[in-house]
């Protein structure tokens, strides 16, 4: 990975943030289906290095997931 980057200094990572597109849905606590894609089977949030979500959107996701959990839309933990 580091080698590839040193070889191609202007190489842009092709994996873009799926939530930063202009037509991507807004991150919202009411959109439970969207949020479920970003939590594990256990109910924990997935790290952004796996989902390739941008840092900005990851912060929004964290807030949305916490709101949805408080309202009983998402679990705090699943077994």
């Amino acid at each position, binding site marked *: 990975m580091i080698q590839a980057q040193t070889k191609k200094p202007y190489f842009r990572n092709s994996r873009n943030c799926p939530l930063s597109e202009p037509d991507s849905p807004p991150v*919202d*606590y*009411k*959109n*439970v*289906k969207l949020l*479920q894609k970003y939590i594990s089977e256990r109910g924990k949030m997935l790290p952004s290095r796996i989902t390739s979500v941008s840092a900005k959107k990851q912060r929004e996701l964290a807030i949305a997931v916490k*709101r949805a*959990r*408080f*309202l*009983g*839309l*998402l*679990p*705090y933990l699943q077994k």
Partner: protein
Amino acid sequence: MPLYEHVYLARQDITNQQVESITKSIEDVVKNEGGSIDRIEYWGLRQLAYKIKKNRKAHYTMMNINASSETLKKVERQISLNENILRHISIKVDKFEDGPSLMMNPRSTESSE
């Protein structure tokens, strides 16, 4: 005036009329204080992801409230005194969503197991 999205969860045992009367009482408080409610959405009796005060289901209602912070304080006080309400949340938003929220769409309402 600031805009708030207010969601409250009512106990599963109460009837739809009781939920409506709670919503009505909140509406009255807001209107008496000079605010307005732009939208009321009843999301129905939904399965909770975990038990809250021994309830497995709850009546969800969302309201888009356009009122001052003092008014919202009064609304929250009234809600917290009501024993039929399990939880409530007020979120300040920059602008309300256009059209009904995703919860009103039957396809997206399949809740988590």
